[in-house]
């Protein structure tokens, strides 16, 4: 299992790893609410919450999420526009 894309397995070097679709469910591992952005495009979004999420499948990813999220919260992924792109966005699991 690896998250950052490569054409090979970073542990053993075998080529052609299979791509799999994640469920979008996970738990918040870490959070940082960004209040000072560095570009005009990102500045219009402050404050925005950057998360590290431990996904159900066993990989960790960086994403955005609701501002009130706390470490350990169960969350579900969707996508939201940010600075001209769609980025993964987590909300608290209902």
């Amino acid at each position: 299992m690896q998250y950052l894309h490569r054409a090979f397995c970073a542990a053993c070097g075998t080529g052609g790893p299979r791509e799999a679709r994640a469920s979008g469910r996970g738990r918040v591992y870490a959070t940082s609410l960004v209040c000072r952005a560095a570009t005009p495009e990102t500045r219009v979004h402050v404050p925005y919450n950057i998360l590290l999420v431990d996904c159900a499948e066993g990989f960790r990813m960086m994403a955005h999420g609701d501002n009130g999220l706390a470490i350990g919260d169960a969350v579900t992924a969707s996508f939201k526009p940010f600075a001209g792109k769609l980025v993964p966005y987590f909300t608290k699991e209902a």
Partner: protein
Amino acid sequence: MSFITGVGLTPFGRHEGSSSLDLMSKAAQSALDDAGLKRAEIDGILCGYSTVSPHIMLATVFAEHFGIRPSYAHAVQVGGATGLAMTMLAHHLVVSGVCRNVLVVAGENRLTGQSRDASIQALAQVGNPDYEVPLGPTIPAYYGLVASRYMHEYGVTERDLAEFAVLMRAHACTHPGAQFHDPITVADVMASRPVAMPLKLLDCCPVSDGGAAFVISRERTGKTGVRIRGCAQAHTHQHVTAAPSLSELGAEIAIARAKEATGLAISDVRYAAIYDSFTITLAMLLEDLGLAGRGEAAARARAGHFSRDGEMPLNTHGGLLSYGHCGVGGAMAHLVEAHLQMTGRAANRQVRDASIALLHGDGGVLSSHVSMFLERVRRASV
């Protein structure tokens, strides 16, 4: 064996009109003067990088500008760990007989040479271009993530982190070259503008202009020698997304290797020079290195343990947090200060005993680590 025979450091802050090469030259000249060496005696040059004036061959650009024709020269790039990584390489170049005197130099007009936004943006590129940078993170945000997790796992509070900003400022107040000389309190840190929570403005190092340099030599000069006793590195990841768990970070690996290489223990250390890009960086590294128990670094700081008169004086010049941070030269100031302490030249900042110093640098987001032990050697057999 290798010795640090000379050190040079400019004040940090605003150097209006100075280029990166100007600041490198100024620091390099001070280091040469300190070592009592002439340009012709320098046969190796290692330099850092400049985000303001990037160049694919900065070491030879500097060598030509400064007036040296070395037999060995190139730049090194390991983020905040660059200064100690260059020192480690210089040590090995000298020990293996490749060079006699290596000049290690860095300087950058990072404050006045570009906008603060440009600096913040350039540094954020240490993130993954596809998986992280599109989310609009900044270096404080990468460290904010680590801080939130560290506080969660070990019960550290924002007030605890603030202690390190207060301590570094108190030390900077005693150094004329530091960027900041106004004392601050925990309340000031807590009330400072939020940057990337839980980190606030005073939890973050500033952007500075400045330069630093040292000479690493096969033979010592001067009556008190500072010997590189041994050093080691560890690199576990680049991106915070791919970082191992908090108990498996590179600082613990690097220090274990450095202890093994030197036969020294943390109990032998009398002075500490530890990377402090953010308050969380310093708190974590102190605990990872064994200079404080897990979750106990702030309590030790509060009790004066890391103050000039404490049991383990730490970054007595004020560190990156308050002496300032001009890029590669920023963490080199820690070594310059350690050298002044070890040779009894730290004036009003002088500690009682700096016979053995531990230095530690971190690059990226706790990605690259260098641990190094320095030992004072008195002239005995001469």
